[in-house]
Structure formats: C-alpha cells, structure tokens
C-alpha cells in the first residue's frame, strides 16, 4: 500500500471509521447518545458498534439532552474521554446550559485547575426534507462562545480525521457534521487519519477571487469553481474548518492575493460566521480589496419542508457561479 | 523638372499619407515604405498620386524599382521623358 492510494467512501463511512479507530486506540473513549447502541445511531454512523464494544462503551441514553450532555461533561471531569452524540444541532439547544455554563466555563471558574476534555458531535444543516425542527445551522451561535473549540467537517477527510484530534484536546470540542453529506461518496487517501484542527485549508488555489466557506459550502464551491474555470475565472476556495478560533492568516493571505472575497454559508445571514469573516477582512485587508466583499447565506426563514423551498433557502452551486460572475464581470 | 521640385512633390504626397513622420528625415537611399510605415493600401494611394502629379502610368511590375528616393526620382525622370 502506498500513500497515494485512495478509496471511495461515503461521508457516513468516514465518520464511522474515525470513531471506530478512536474507540480502538483508547480504552477511555466511549460513545454516548440517543439511539447510538441498539439502533446503530439515528444516522447509522455507529451501526454494529454495540456488538463490537459492549454496553459500557456504546451507551444509549434517555431523550434528555441536558441530562446526558451533563453526564458526558462529568465523565470527562473524572478522566474519561467521552464522545457525546447529540443527534442534531437543533436538539442541542436543550443542552446549552451544560455546554456553555459548565463545559466552556469550568477551566476559567476553577482558576485553570479543571479541564473538560469532552467531544460533542452534532449533525447540522438541511437533511433532505427534515423540516424546520431538524434542519437549522447553529454554527454561528456556538462559534460565539469562548472556551469552546468549534470545528466543521466539510470534507470526507475531515469527517474521517477531526474526531481523533479532538479527543487529544484537553478542552471541549464541538464537531459539526452534515446530514446532507452523509450519503455522498468521495475519494480519500487510504492511509487517512487524524487531521489538524487549528487551520483553515485552501481546497483549491486560484487568483481571481477567494470563496470562503465551510460545511456543505465546500463541495458546492468546488463544483462552482469548475464551471467558472470554463469561463476563465480562477477562484480560490478556503474551507474554514475551524470556526472558533478562526484562522485569520489563511483568509487574509488569500484576499491580499485575489483582492475579492465571497463568503458562502448555509446559516442565516445576520450575525453569522460570514459577518465575522467580513469584519476580519475589513480589519486586516481593507487596502487590498478591489471590490466590495459579498456573501451568500441561508435565507432568514425557518427551513421549509417542501423540496423546492428547501433548495431555495440555502446557497446552491449555481448561486455561487452567478455571484462570482457578477462580482467579476458586473454586467 | 528639377531634382528639388521633384523631391518636394514626392515628399508632399508622402506627408499626406503619413502625417506623423517628418519627410525631411527621409534619406536618399532609405526604403520609403519602411521609413513611412506604408502598407500596400497606402502605397497604392501613393502611386495614384504620383501618376496624377506627373501624368504617367506606373505598371505594377515596376513597383520594385521605386523603393528609395534615389531610385524613385530616376524612375520618374525616365518615365516622364518617355511620356513626352
């Protein structure tokens, strides 16, 4: 086997392999969450784990987000390395008190004596007609909170590797995974494993404009870039990956090079990740801009159930193509 | 026609075609088309001008004989003598 060999897997399989490797590597790692055991996970990411690792390490919990997230934080305090699965980000709101007032705050409150090495995974974004209770994107909310590291797995490589690195962190990490990507297949290097969770990544190099995105925006932007390339427009694509703390250097260096930026995200527009990125560009790269920074975000409505409205509520590949053309050709 | 008059007439024609070039800078044995940046269309206009001015007919095969002021003036003298 060589390093260049690749294999084609689904995003779901990438998540599963990452978690499987984590459970094998370290006996202190265990998985807890709603339906993760007997049912195999609401999104079938932990299918078969109960039989392989047993009830002590694959733990079904009651439908009480505040309760089981709190229990996970307690286990982390006691020296374990829990992976807490909150089915979707929408339900995580019930556990915000535990996540913010305990996980994010204890290191500070204890004068630096107590770390909370908990990893919380949650699915985010639209999920093929799951309606407004299951389809929202709360990344901007979590990225607002000091004391939490927030990462977003927008590629198969990151779905496979982010969890492994997160479990090494002494402090709480929230990993956003994406319901809409679960069945998507992609090639990853066969030796793929842990990835850094500090830096944004340039997913495609280009010179005419920087598209800055995360989550499902990454693959959409890459597809849009191919279309734009056929019109001779060469865009650079930055996958933010880490939403708190944000990697300024990668963004600013890119904008200084291309002089134009478009931010793409599925979350609602106002007070969002894009708001923050644009502020940082203004603070650090104003005199390198040759055009106003633009953004494509989710429409500010509860995500609708009908397919055509669901599609219309978030940025699509063609929206990205159109926005870039407008920014570059403005006619 | 005296040499000087001949030369003045030629230079006037050239100036009409290429007003941006100072005709006084044209040396006697320099290639006229190169100095004035004259393409085939301009050259045809130039020949038409010469023919009208001197009452001659310049056949196409003679174009090669009139590349410099020296050769052009010699050619014109010969041609206008023949014509008379």
């Amino acid at each position, binding site marked *: 086997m060589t390093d260049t060999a690749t294999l084609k897997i689904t995003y779901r399989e990438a998540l599963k392999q990452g978690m499987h490797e984590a459970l094998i590597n370290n006996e202190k790692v265990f998985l807890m969450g709603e339906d993760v055991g007997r049912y195999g996970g609401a999104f079938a990411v932990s299918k078969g784990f109960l039989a392989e690792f047993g009830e002590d390490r694959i733990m079904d919990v009651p439908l009480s987000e505040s309760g089981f997230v709190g229990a996970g934080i307690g286990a982390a305090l006691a020296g374990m390395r829990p992976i807490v699965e909150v089915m979707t980000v929408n339900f995580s709101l019930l556990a915000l008190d535990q996540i913010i007032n305990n996980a994010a705050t204890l290191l500070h409150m204890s004068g630096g004596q107590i770390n909370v090495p908990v990893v919380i995974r949650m699915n985010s974004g639209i999920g093929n007609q799951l309606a407004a209770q299951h389809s929202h994107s709360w990344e901007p909310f979590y990225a607002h909170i000091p004391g939490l590291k927030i990462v977003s797995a927008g590629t198969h490589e990151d779905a496979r590797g982010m969890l492994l690195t997160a479990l090494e962190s002494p402090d709480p990490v929230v990993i956003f995974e994406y319901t809409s990507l679960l069945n998507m297949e992609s090639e990853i290097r066969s030796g793929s494993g842990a990835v850094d969770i500090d830096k944004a990544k340039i997913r495609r190099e280009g010179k005419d404009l920087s598209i800055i995105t995360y989550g499902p925006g990454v693959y959409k932007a890459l597809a849009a870039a191919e279309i734009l390339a*056929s*019109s*001779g*427009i060469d865009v650079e694509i930055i996958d933010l990956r880490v939403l708190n703390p944000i990697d300024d250097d990668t963004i600013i260096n890119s904008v200084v090079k291309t*002089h134009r930026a478009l931010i793409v995200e599925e979350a609602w527009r106002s007070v969002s990740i894009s708001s923050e990125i644009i502020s940082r560009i203004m603070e650090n790269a*104003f*005199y*390198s*801009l*040759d*055009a*106003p920074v633009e953004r494509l975000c989710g429409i500010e409505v509860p995500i609708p159930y009908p397919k055509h409205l669901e599609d219309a509520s978030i940025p699509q590949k063609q929206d990205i193509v159109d926005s870039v053309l407008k*920014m570059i050709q*403005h006619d | 026609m005296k040499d000087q008059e001949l030369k003045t007439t030629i230079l006037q024609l050239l100036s009409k075609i*290429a*007003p*941006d070039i100072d005709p006084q800078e044209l040396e006697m044995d320099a290639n006229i*088309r190169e100095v004035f*940046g*004259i*393409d*085939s*269309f301009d050259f*045809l206009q130039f*020949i*038409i001008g010469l*023919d009208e001015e001197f009452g001659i*007919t*310049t*056949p*196409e*095969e003679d174009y090669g004989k009139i590349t410099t002021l020296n050769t052009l003036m010699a050619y014109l003298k010969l041609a206008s003598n023949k014509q008379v």
Partner: protein
Amino acid sequence: MIEFTMPSLGADMEDGTLAEWRVKSGDFVKRGDIIADVDTQKGLIEIEVFDEGTIHELIVKEGEKVPVGTVMATIIPAQEKISADVKTAPAPASKSKIKKESIKPAVKRVVTKGIDHLKISPLAKRMAVEKGIDVSTIKGSGPQGSIVKKDIDLAVAMKAESHVEVTGGKKERAAEGVRAAIASAMSRSNREIPHFYLETRIDMSKALDWLSQSNKQTELKDRLLSVVLLIKATAKAIREVPAVNAYWKNGLELKNVINIGFAVSLREGGVVIPAIPEADKKSLNELMALLNDLIPRARALQLRSSELSQSTITLTNIGEGSTDKVFGIIYPPQVAIIGFGNIVEEAWAENGALSTRPVVHVTLAADHRAIDGYLGGRFLMALKKNLQNPAAL
C-alpha cells in the same frame, strides 16, 4: 411608437455622447438614414436608424452623455403615419412625461451624484497614491462605475505612453479612447476566451500570377490588392465551414450573414475594425472599392455605427510588409480571428522537388468553447483551396 436607443457599438461600449442630431421632430426617416453623430471611445460615429417612420420627439439633448440602451428619440412607424398629426396633441406628450417620472424612483443612486464622492476600490486608491495617478480623470469600469485595479493599471500604462502626441485635441482624445477600448476588449478576451491556434502555409503563386495579369488590364485606380483575394477566399471558406462565423454569449449563436471585420491599424497606434458586410456576396472589385472607402475613414476615426458593430468574424492582415505570422486575440463576442502574415518567398517542397514560391502563413485563433480543432482545420483547408483557384473568386 418606436424607441430609438443609444446603440452598442461593440462589447466594450458603455455609453456615448450625442454630438449632433441630423434630424428634427417631424422629419421622415428610412432604414439606413444617418440621424445622429455620437462621440464614443472609437471616435465620432454616424448613427443609422433601422426603422422607417417620422421622428416624433428628440429626447436626448446634444452634448448629453447617456448609457447604451437609453431611449434617444421616438419614431412614429411609417404605417401609423396617418396618426402622425397628433404628435402635438397632449396625449403622447403626457405619456412621455409620466414615463420619465416613473423612471426616477428606480434610479435611487442619483442621490449621491451631487455629493463630491468618488467610487474607487480601496486597492485602486492605494495604487493610485503609490503611482501618482489623478483618479478624478479616470472613468471606472467596476461595479456601479467604480474605479478598480484594472483602471489604474490602464492609467499607468497610458501615462507611460503619453509622450505620443497627435495634433488636434479631438483626434487625440479619440485615439486615447481607442486605446482604452482595445485594452478593455482584449483583456476581457484573454481572460474569458480559451483560445486555440492553427496555422498553415499557402502557396500564393497562382493567386499572385492571376492578380498581376488582371491588374495589367485595368486602370491604376481599379487595381486590386492581394488582400482582396485573401478577404474573398476567407469569406468563401466561411461559407463552407460556417461554425467559425458566430457569437458566443451564454452559448453559441451561429451567424447567417458573413460580415468580415477588417483590422485597420492607426498610424498613432491602435486598431479599428470596420465590417465588410456580406463579404461572400461581393465581387473582388466591389471589395476593393469598399476598402478604398473604409480604410481612409477608419484611419480618420469616422466610421458609422453599423460598420463598427456588425462584424461576425475578424481578419487581420497586419503582418503585411513586416512579419511572417500573426496570432490574433479574438474580439468578443466573436469566436474566431484570422491572421495573415507577409507574403514572402519560401522554399517549397512538392512532388519530391524543391522550388521557391510566394507563401503566406495564415493562422486561425478560435474560441474552444465554440469550435474545435477539426472544424478549424477544415476552415483553413477550404481557405487554402480557394486561393489555388483565384479566377473563381
């Protein structure tokens, strides 16, 4: 009522200044009449009308600069002539008044117009300071007419060339406009169009022999130049391979008429490309007569609107008298440009023997979004074949 609008005289034209109306209200006009002179980047252009009827109202005032598409005048169509008498009646007048008012709210930006504020990107502003460019004299090409990096780059380039002076203020300005128009169109072409190039050599001995025989029998004024053969041979080759004669705008639009844009270099620098309409249907003598008319007017920057906007493909003979080969940049939205080099004697191998022949190198630069190498090759072969049978041209 027909609306007569500011025409677009090429992909790079954004607006024009009305220099003079050649008609007045009540005048009868027919297709092809020149009704106005408009000052554009390409000089003073005579604008033709394409409808028949009676001028109702001249809306744009002389000296006014308006964007492409602005209604400049209204014309009562010929078949409505009977009702033309009502032109002083209040009804149409109030209609046009209402229309003007209703436009107002759409143009919200007018509010900022009076404010002494220049739209310029931060990058462009920084560059202008660094390079000592006076931005108040620059016309922006960015969003909402803002000045962007490209405009500063252009201004820097023009500043470097500013020692070239031409007498006559108007002509100087026009030449500057030509430069800016070329810069904008060519940058866009190079950025957007994936060019590919094909080249072939053509033996010109038959064509030149035929030409010199033909010219021997004609008066000086009716003599043909070899370029006329090249134009006609090209036009006929287009008829055989029509794919090269097209526009690319959000997709391919094949053109039925063959209007060959003929590149004319200006002595002060710059190129203008008047169209030779329906070149395939014109005889060699007609083509020569057309060139005799077009070239001097092109050099004086006195072309008509239709002549600047009709080309469906471009031919450049710029190599004549100088270089052997020319590789062109396509003029958008066209999809091809044909470049002829100088006709020179070259060694020519044929049937196992070497001889010298007058040879022209011809290139085709084509838009790979629109056409492929196979068709491009067929086009050049057709061109080559046509030049071997000059009598049939």
